[in-house]
Protein backbone atom coordinates (compact mmCIF):
# COMPACT_ATOMS: atom_id res chain seq x y z
CA UNK A 1 0.00 0.00 0.00
CA UNK A 2 0.86 3.63 -0.20
CA UNK A 3 1.23 5.25 3.21
CA UNK A 4 0.73 8.90 4.17
CA UNK A 5 3.45 9.36 6.77
CA UNK A 6 3.78 11.84 9.60
CA UNK A 7 6.24 14.21 7.88
CA UNK A 8 3.45 15.10 5.48
CA UNK A 9 0.93 15.36 8.32
CA UNK A 10 2.96 18.00 10.17
CA UNK A 11 1.40 20.93 8.36
CA UNK A 12 -2.30 20.41 9.01
CA UNK A 13 -4.67 19.22 11.70
CA UNK A 14 -5.73 15.71 10.76
CA UNK A 15 -9.29 14.79 11.75
CA UNK A 16 -10.44 11.16 12.05
CA UNK A 17 -14.23 11.29 12.04
CA UNK A 18 -14.84 7.58 12.48
CA UNK A 19 -18.55 7.98 13.18
CA UNK A 20 -18.94 10.03 10.02
CA UNK A 21 -16.68 7.75 7.96
CA UNK A 22 -14.33 10.49 6.82
CA UNK A 23 -10.81 11.86 7.26
CA UNK A 24 -10.22 15.59 7.15
CA UNK A 25 -7.32 17.98 6.76
CA UNK A 26 -7.48 21.45 8.22
CA UNK A 27 -4.44 23.33 6.90
CA UNK A 28 -4.47 26.44 9.10
CA UNK A 29 -5.60 24.82 12.35
CA UNK A 30 -2.14 24.04 13.70
CA UNK A 31 -0.41 27.38 13.24
Amino acid sequence: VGIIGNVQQRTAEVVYDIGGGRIGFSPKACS
Partner: protein
Amino acid sequence: GEEQFFRTVRVDTLLPAAVCSTRKGFSTGGNSLRVVHRRGPCSPLAGVKPNHARTLLRQDVLRVESLQRRLSREASVGGQTQASEVALPAQRGITFGTANYVVTLGLGTPGRDQTVVFDTGSNVCWVQCQPCVGSCYPQQGPVFDPAASSTYSNVSCGSTACGNLDVRGCSGTTCLYGVKYGDNSTTVGFLATDTLTLAPGYAFPGFVFGCGQRNQGLFGKVAGLVGLGRSSFSLVSQASQRLGKAFSYCLPATSSSTGHLTIGESAASKAASYTPMLTDPRDSSLYFLTLTGISVGGQLLPVSPSVFQSAGTLIDSGTVITRLPPSAYSALRSAFRAAMAKYPMAPPRTLLDTCYDFSNTETISYPVVSLHFGGGAELQLELPGIFYVADISQACLGFAGNGSPGD
Protein backbone atom coordinates in the same frame (compact mmCIF):
# COMPACT_ATOMS: atom_id res chain seq x y z
CA GLY B 1 1.17 31.55 -10.54
CA GLU B 2 4.73 31.07 -9.37
CA GLU B 3 4.21 33.21 -6.26
CA GLN B 4 1.18 31.17 -5.28
CA PHE B 5 2.86 27.78 -5.60
CA PHE B 6 6.42 28.55 -4.48
CA ARG B 7 7.57 29.64 -1.03
CA THR B 8 10.76 31.35 0.08
CA VAL B 9 12.11 30.68 3.58
CA ARG B 10 15.28 31.21 5.55
CA VAL B 11 17.39 28.06 5.68
CA ASP B 12 17.81 28.26 9.46
CA THR B 13 14.07 27.63 9.88
CA LEU B 14 14.59 24.11 8.52
CA LEU B 15 16.17 22.84 11.72
CA PRO B 16 14.55 22.45 15.16
CA ALA B 17 15.64 24.82 17.92
CA ALA B 18 17.71 23.63 20.87
CA VAL B 19 14.98 24.62 23.31
CA CYS B 20 11.29 23.85 23.41
CA SER B 21 8.88 26.37 21.98
CA THR B 22 5.30 25.81 23.14
CA ARG B 23 2.60 26.96 20.81
CA LYS B 24 0.82 30.00 22.21
CA GLY B 25 -2.91 30.00 22.69
CA PHE B 26 -3.20 26.26 23.08
CA SER B 27 -4.68 24.81 26.22
CA THR B 28 -4.02 21.23 27.27
CA GLY B 29 -7.26 21.16 29.27
CA GLY B 30 -10.40 19.20 28.51
CA ASN B 31 -10.17 16.42 26.00
CA SER B 32 -6.90 17.66 24.45
CA LEU B 33 -3.44 16.37 25.28
CA ARG B 34 -0.13 18.04 24.51
CA VAL B 35 1.82 16.16 21.83
CA VAL B 36 5.61 16.26 21.68
CA HIS B 37 8.28 14.37 19.79
CA ARG B 38 9.65 11.86 22.23
CA ARG B 39 13.29 12.66 21.45
CA GLY B 40 13.04 16.46 21.26
CA PRO B 41 13.60 19.20 23.87
CA CYS B 42 9.85 19.40 24.62
CA SER B 43 9.72 15.75 25.66
CA PRO B 44 9.45 14.79 29.34
CA LEU B 45 11.57 11.77 28.44
CA ALA B 46 14.88 13.62 28.85
CA GLY B 47 15.27 14.38 25.16
CA VAL B 48 18.04 12.59 23.33
CA LYS B 49 19.07 14.03 19.97
CA PRO B 50 17.93 11.50 17.37
CA ASN B 51 20.35 9.91 14.94
CA HIS B 52 18.16 10.29 11.88
CA ALA B 53 19.92 7.99 9.46
CA ARG B 54 20.82 5.13 11.73
CA THR B 55 17.78 5.09 13.97
CA LEU B 56 14.70 6.91 12.77
CA LEU B 57 14.81 6.10 9.08
CA ARG B 58 15.85 2.48 9.58
CA GLN B 59 13.07 2.01 12.12
CA ASP B 60 10.74 3.60 9.58
CA VAL B 61 11.74 0.97 7.03
CA LEU B 62 10.98 -1.73 9.61
CA ARG B 63 7.62 -0.18 10.34
CA VAL B 64 6.62 -0.04 6.69
CA GLU B 65 7.77 -3.61 6.11
CA SER B 66 5.66 -4.58 9.10
CA LEU B 67 2.61 -2.77 7.70
CA GLN B 68 3.07 -4.41 4.31
CA ARG B 69 3.43 -7.82 5.97
CA ARG B 70 0.37 -7.16 8.09
CA LEU B 71 -1.64 -6.52 4.93
CA SER B 72 -0.20 -9.52 3.11
CA ARG B 73 -2.61 -12.38 2.67
CA GLU B 74 0.11 -14.80 3.77
CA ALA B 75 0.29 -13.29 7.25
CA SER B 76 -0.21 -15.81 10.01
CA VAL B 77 -2.67 -14.87 12.70
CA GLY B 78 -2.17 -15.35 16.39
CA GLY B 79 -4.84 -17.20 18.31
CA GLN B 80 -5.86 -18.19 21.77
CA THR B 81 -3.66 -20.37 23.87
CA GLN B 82 -4.53 -21.97 27.16
CA ALA B 83 -0.94 -21.97 28.31
CA SER B 84 -0.03 -19.78 31.22
CA GLU B 85 2.23 -17.84 28.86
CA VAL B 86 0.92 -16.05 25.78
CA ALA B 87 2.41 -17.46 22.58
CA LEU B 88 3.25 -14.55 20.30
CA PRO B 89 2.91 -15.24 16.58
CA ALA B 90 6.21 -15.80 14.86
CA GLN B 91 5.50 -13.94 11.62
CA ARG B 92 2.92 -11.32 12.29
CA GLY B 93 4.12 -8.33 14.24
CA ILE B 94 1.96 -5.23 14.29
CA THR B 95 3.63 -1.94 13.69
CA PHE B 96 5.53 0.09 16.25
CA GLY B 97 9.03 1.25 15.42
CA THR B 98 8.82 4.93 14.74
CA ALA B 99 5.71 5.99 16.62
CA ASN B 100 7.64 8.89 17.99
CA TYR B 101 4.98 11.22 19.30
CA VAL B 102 4.12 11.05 22.98
CA VAL B 103 1.35 12.31 25.27
CA THR B 104 1.03 12.23 29.04
CA LEU B 105 -2.15 10.97 30.67
CA GLY B 106 -3.20 9.75 34.10
CA LEU B 107 -3.85 6.13 35.08
CA GLY B 108 -5.28 4.72 38.30
CA THR B 109 -6.72 6.22 41.49
CA PRO B 110 -5.07 8.42 42.49
CA GLY B 111 -3.96 9.12 38.94
CA ARG B 112 -0.30 8.61 38.05
CA ASP B 113 1.14 10.31 34.99
CA GLN B 114 2.13 7.98 32.17
CA THR B 115 4.02 9.29 29.15
CA VAL B 116 3.10 7.00 26.27
CA VAL B 117 3.49 6.96 22.51
CA PHE B 118 0.30 7.25 20.50
CA ASP B 119 -0.15 5.34 17.32
CA THR B 120 -3.01 5.11 14.82
CA GLY B 121 -1.47 1.83 13.60
CA SER B 122 -1.99 0.12 16.99
CA ASN B 123 -5.02 -0.86 19.02
CA VAL B 124 -4.08 -2.30 22.41
CA CYS B 125 -3.20 0.28 25.06
CA TRP B 126 -0.63 -0.84 27.63
CA VAL B 127 1.80 0.39 30.25
CA GLN B 128 4.64 -1.32 32.09
CA CYS B 129 3.39 -2.66 35.41
CA GLN B 130 4.83 -3.61 38.77
CA PRO B 131 5.99 -6.13 39.81
CA CYS B 132 7.46 -6.69 36.30
CA VAL B 133 7.25 -10.46 36.73
CA GLY B 134 9.24 -11.03 33.54
CA SER B 135 11.12 -7.82 32.81
CA CYS B 136 10.58 -4.10 32.42
CA TYR B 137 12.90 -1.88 30.41
CA PRO B 138 14.15 1.34 32.08
CA GLN B 139 11.47 4.02 31.66
CA GLN B 140 11.31 7.66 32.66
CA GLY B 141 9.59 7.88 36.05
CA PRO B 142 8.11 5.13 38.21
CA VAL B 143 6.53 2.04 36.68
CA PHE B 144 2.75 1.86 37.23
CA ASP B 145 1.91 -0.05 40.40
CA PRO B 146 -1.55 -1.68 40.37
CA ALA B 147 -1.35 -2.22 44.13
CA ALA B 148 -1.30 1.56 44.62
CA SER B 149 -4.51 2.11 42.65
CA SER B 150 -7.86 1.63 44.40
CA THR B 151 -9.70 1.14 41.08
CA TYR B 152 -7.45 -1.43 39.39
CA SER B 153 -8.87 -4.87 38.43
CA ASN B 154 -7.65 -7.77 36.37
CA VAL B 155 -9.94 -8.90 33.56
CA SER B 156 -11.20 -12.48 33.75
CA CYS B 157 -10.39 -15.05 31.12
CA GLY B 158 -14.01 -15.63 30.19
CA SER B 159 -14.85 -11.97 29.60
CA THR B 160 -15.85 -10.50 26.24
CA ALA B 161 -12.84 -8.17 26.34
CA CYS B 162 -10.46 -11.11 26.71
CA GLY B 163 -12.20 -12.95 23.89
CA ASN B 164 -11.74 -9.95 21.59
CA LEU B 165 -7.94 -9.92 21.91
CA ASP B 166 -5.98 -11.08 18.87
CA VAL B 167 -3.38 -12.76 21.07
CA ARG B 168 -4.48 -13.99 24.45
CA GLY B 169 -3.98 -16.60 27.09
CA CYS B 170 -5.06 -17.44 30.61
CA SER B 171 -3.24 -17.63 33.88
CA GLY B 172 -5.79 -19.37 36.07
CA THR B 173 -8.89 -17.24 35.56
CA THR B 174 -6.92 -14.08 34.67
CA CYS B 175 -6.72 -12.93 31.06
CA LEU B 176 -3.28 -12.47 29.53
CA TYR B 177 -2.62 -10.24 26.52
CA GLY B 178 0.34 -10.20 24.18
CA VAL B 179 1.53 -7.84 21.46
CA LYS B 180 4.46 -8.36 19.16
CA TYR B 181 5.50 -5.33 17.14
CA GLY B 182 7.05 -5.25 13.72
CA ASP B 183 10.48 -4.40 15.13
CA ASN B 184 10.30 -7.50 17.39
CA SER B 185 9.51 -5.45 20.49
CA THR B 186 7.04 -7.32 22.70
CA THR B 187 4.78 -6.77 25.67
CA VAL B 188 2.96 -9.49 27.61
CA GLY B 189 0.96 -9.15 30.81
CA PHE B 190 -2.44 -9.03 32.45
CA LEU B 191 -5.45 -7.53 30.72
CA ALA B 192 -6.79 -5.06 33.26
CA THR B 193 -9.15 -2.17 33.86
CA ASP B 194 -8.53 1.07 35.71
CA THR B 195 -9.50 4.73 35.50
CA LEU B 196 -7.85 6.65 32.67
CA THR B 197 -7.74 10.43 33.02
CA LEU B 198 -7.13 12.73 30.06
CA ALA B 199 -7.55 15.87 32.16
CA PRO B 200 -9.52 16.93 35.24
CA GLY B 201 -13.17 16.20 34.49
CA TYR B 202 -12.28 13.77 31.72
CA ALA B 203 -11.92 10.44 33.53
CA PHE B 204 -12.82 7.08 32.04
CA PRO B 205 -13.47 4.40 34.68
CA GLY B 206 -13.08 0.80 33.56
CA PHE B 207 -10.59 1.61 30.81
CA VAL B 208 -9.25 -1.68 29.42
CA PHE B 209 -5.47 -1.84 29.02
CA GLY B 210 -2.55 -4.19 29.20
CA CYS B 211 -0.63 -4.29 32.47
CA GLY B 212 2.74 -5.25 30.99
CA GLN B 213 4.78 -7.74 32.98
CA ARG B 214 7.32 -8.72 30.33
CA ASN B 215 8.26 -5.83 28.07
CA GLN B 216 11.25 -5.91 25.77
CA GLY B 217 12.43 -3.96 22.76
CA LEU B 218 12.81 -0.53 21.26
CA PHE B 219 10.44 1.40 23.48
CA GLY B 220 12.94 3.99 24.64
CA LYS B 221 11.90 5.50 27.95
CA VAL B 222 8.14 5.62 27.38
CA ALA B 223 5.79 4.03 29.91
CA GLY B 224 3.79 2.29 27.20
CA LEU B 225 1.55 2.92 24.23
CA VAL B 226 -1.90 4.27 23.46
CA GLY B 227 -3.47 2.80 20.35
CA LEU B 228 -5.75 4.94 18.20
CA GLY B 229 -6.78 2.25 15.72
CA ARG B 230 -10.33 1.21 14.99
CA SER B 231 -10.61 -1.87 17.24
CA SER B 232 -12.65 -1.87 20.44
CA PHE B 233 -9.46 -1.67 22.54
CA SER B 234 -8.20 1.66 21.25
CA LEU B 235 -8.45 4.85 23.28
CA VAL B 236 -10.81 6.44 20.78
CA SER B 237 -13.18 3.44 20.84
CA GLN B 238 -13.21 3.30 24.61
CA ALA B 239 -13.85 7.04 24.95
CA SER B 240 -16.40 7.18 22.14
CA GLN B 241 -19.53 6.76 24.26
CA ARG B 242 -18.78 10.01 26.04
CA LEU B 243 -16.74 12.01 23.53
CA GLY B 244 -17.98 10.67 20.20
CA LYS B 245 -16.16 8.48 17.73
CA ALA B 246 -13.60 10.99 16.50
CA PHE B 247 -10.16 12.33 17.25
CA SER B 248 -7.75 14.77 15.71
CA TYR B 249 -4.18 15.87 16.09
CA CYS B 250 -1.68 18.50 15.16
CA LEU B 251 1.79 16.98 15.07
CA PRO B 252 4.60 19.34 16.07
CA ALA B 253 6.16 21.00 13.02
CA THR B 254 9.62 20.26 14.46
CA SER B 255 10.93 18.24 17.39
CA SER B 256 11.32 21.49 19.35
CA SER B 257 7.66 22.50 19.14
CA THR B 258 4.40 21.08 20.46
CA GLY B 259 1.11 19.91 19.04
CA HIS B 260 -2.04 18.37 20.43
CA LEU B 261 -4.15 15.23 20.38
CA THR B 262 -7.87 15.82 20.89
CA ILE B 263 -10.15 12.90 21.67
CA GLY B 264 -13.68 13.63 20.40
CA GLU B 265 -14.69 16.50 18.17
CA SER B 266 -12.46 19.55 17.85
CA ALA B 267 -13.17 23.03 16.58
CA ALA B 268 -10.99 22.33 13.56
CA SER B 269 -13.23 19.51 12.40
CA LYS B 270 -15.78 21.97 11.04
CA ALA B 271 -13.24 23.72 8.82
CA ALA B 272 -11.52 20.59 7.50
CA SER B 273 -11.68 19.36 3.95
CA TYR B 274 -12.80 15.71 4.02
CA THR B 275 -12.22 12.51 2.09
CA PRO B 276 -14.07 9.23 2.73
CA MET B 277 -12.49 6.94 5.35
CA LEU B 278 -12.20 3.49 3.81
CA THR B 279 -12.00 0.08 5.44
CA ASP B 280 -9.75 -2.59 3.98
CA PRO B 281 -10.74 -6.17 4.85
CA ARG B 282 -7.05 -7.11 5.03
CA ASP B 283 -6.90 -5.11 8.27
CA SER B 284 -10.03 -3.29 9.35
CA SER B 285 -8.31 -1.46 12.19
CA LEU B 286 -6.20 0.75 9.88
CA TYR B 287 -7.34 4.01 8.28
CA PHE B 288 -7.50 3.87 4.50
CA LEU B 289 -8.34 6.68 2.10
CA THR B 290 -8.13 7.34 -1.64
CA LEU B 291 -5.14 9.29 -2.93
CA THR B 292 -5.92 10.46 -6.45
CA GLY B 293 -3.00 12.70 -7.40
CA ILE B 294 -0.08 14.90 -6.42
CA SER B 295 0.83 18.34 -7.64
CA VAL B 296 4.20 20.09 -7.46
CA GLY B 297 4.40 23.86 -7.82
CA GLY B 298 0.74 23.94 -8.88
CA GLN B 299 1.18 21.37 -11.67
CA LEU B 300 -0.60 18.03 -11.35
CA LEU B 301 1.80 15.15 -11.96
CA PRO B 302 1.01 13.01 -15.03
CA VAL B 303 0.06 9.96 -12.97
CA SER B 304 -3.22 8.12 -13.45
CA PRO B 305 -5.36 7.88 -10.27
CA SER B 306 -5.47 4.13 -10.86
CA VAL B 307 -1.75 3.97 -10.01
CA PHE B 308 -2.59 5.02 -6.42
CA GLN B 309 -5.77 3.00 -6.20
CA SER B 310 -4.49 -0.39 -7.30
CA ALA B 311 -2.85 -1.10 -3.95
CA GLY B 312 -4.68 1.46 -1.82
CA THR B 313 -3.41 4.13 0.56
CA LEU B 314 -3.51 4.34 4.33
CA ILE B 315 -2.75 7.19 6.70
CA ASP B 316 -0.58 6.43 9.71
CA SER B 317 0.68 8.61 12.54
CA GLY B 318 3.69 6.39 13.18
CA THR B 319 5.18 6.07 9.71
CA VAL B 320 7.60 8.93 9.10
CA ILE B 321 8.18 9.04 5.34
CA THR B 322 5.24 8.86 2.90
CA ARG B 323 5.52 5.82 0.60
CA LEU B 324 4.17 6.05 -2.95
CA PRO B 325 3.76 3.56 -5.80
CA PRO B 326 7.08 3.47 -7.72
CA SER B 327 5.82 5.30 -10.83
CA ALA B 328 4.14 8.02 -8.75
CA TYR B 329 7.29 8.58 -6.72
CA SER B 330 9.36 8.71 -9.90
CA ALA B 331 7.09 11.45 -11.29
CA LEU B 332 7.21 13.39 -8.02
CA ARG B 333 10.98 13.15 -7.84
CA SER B 334 11.41 14.38 -11.41
CA ALA B 335 9.10 17.37 -10.93
CA PHE B 336 10.62 18.26 -7.58
CA ARG B 337 14.19 18.03 -8.85
CA ALA B 338 13.28 20.22 -11.82
CA ALA B 339 11.80 22.85 -9.50
CA MET B 340 14.87 22.73 -7.23
CA ALA B 341 17.44 22.57 -10.03
CA LYS B 342 19.32 25.67 -8.89
CA TYR B 343 20.40 24.10 -5.60
CA PRO B 344 23.33 21.65 -5.26
CA MET B 345 22.26 18.11 -4.52
CA ALA B 346 23.64 16.09 -1.61
CA PRO B 347 24.19 12.32 -1.28
CA PRO B 348 21.11 10.18 -0.58
CA ARG B 349 20.23 9.40 3.03
CA THR B 350 19.06 5.79 3.47
CA LEU B 351 15.71 5.58 1.66
CA LEU B 352 15.68 9.29 0.72
CA ASP B 353 17.27 9.87 -2.68
CA THR B 354 16.53 13.54 -3.38
CA CYS B 355 18.62 15.59 -0.99
CA TYR B 356 20.08 19.11 -1.15
CA ASP B 357 23.01 20.90 0.41
CA PHE B 358 21.74 24.25 1.69
CA SER B 359 24.82 25.02 3.77
CA ASN B 360 25.91 27.88 1.49
CA THR B 361 22.45 29.42 1.08
CA GLU B 362 20.60 31.86 3.33
CA THR B 363 17.15 31.42 1.80
CA ILE B 364 15.59 28.80 -0.41
CA SER B 365 12.59 28.82 -2.71
CA TYR B 366 10.69 25.53 -2.88
CA PRO B 367 7.58 24.32 -4.71
CA VAL B 368 4.39 23.68 -2.73
CA VAL B 369 3.47 19.99 -2.90
CA SER B 370 -0.22 19.06 -2.65
CA LEU B 371 -1.84 15.68 -2.12
CA HIS B 372 -5.27 15.26 -3.70
CA PHE B 373 -7.81 12.83 -2.27
CA GLY B 374 -11.11 11.29 -3.28
CA GLY B 375 -14.06 13.61 -2.79
CA GLY B 376 -11.94 16.66 -3.61
CA ALA B 377 -10.01 17.01 -0.36
CA GLU B 378 -6.56 18.54 -0.68
CA LEU B 379 -3.62 18.56 1.71
CA GLN B 380 -1.30 21.39 0.74
CA LEU B 381 2.11 20.79 2.27
CA GLU B 382 4.36 23.52 3.60
CA LEU B 383 8.05 23.31 4.43
CA PRO B 384 7.89 20.81 7.36
CA GLY B 385 5.64 18.53 5.29
CA ILE B 386 7.98 18.40 2.30
CA PHE B 387 11.52 18.20 3.65
CA TYR B 388 13.06 15.73 6.06
CA VAL B 389 16.04 17.63 7.42
CA ALA B 390 18.62 15.85 9.53
CA ASP B 391 21.36 18.28 8.62
CA ILE B 392 21.40 21.56 6.70
CA SER B 393 23.86 20.02 4.24
CA GLN B 394 21.49 17.11 3.58
CA ALA B 395 17.84 18.26 3.43
CA CYS B 396 15.84 15.57 1.67
CA LEU B 397 12.47 15.29 -0.03
CA GLY B 398 10.44 13.43 2.59
CA PHE B 399 8.88 10.88 0.24
CA ALA B 400 9.99 7.44 -0.94
CA GLY B 401 8.86 4.86 -3.44
CA ASN B 402 7.55 1.41 -2.62
CA GLY B 403 9.49 -1.56 -3.92
CA SER B 404 6.80 -2.69 -6.33
CA PRO B 405 3.51 -1.30 -7.70
CA GLY B 406 1.52 -3.87 -5.71
CA ASP B 407 3.07 -2.98 -2.31
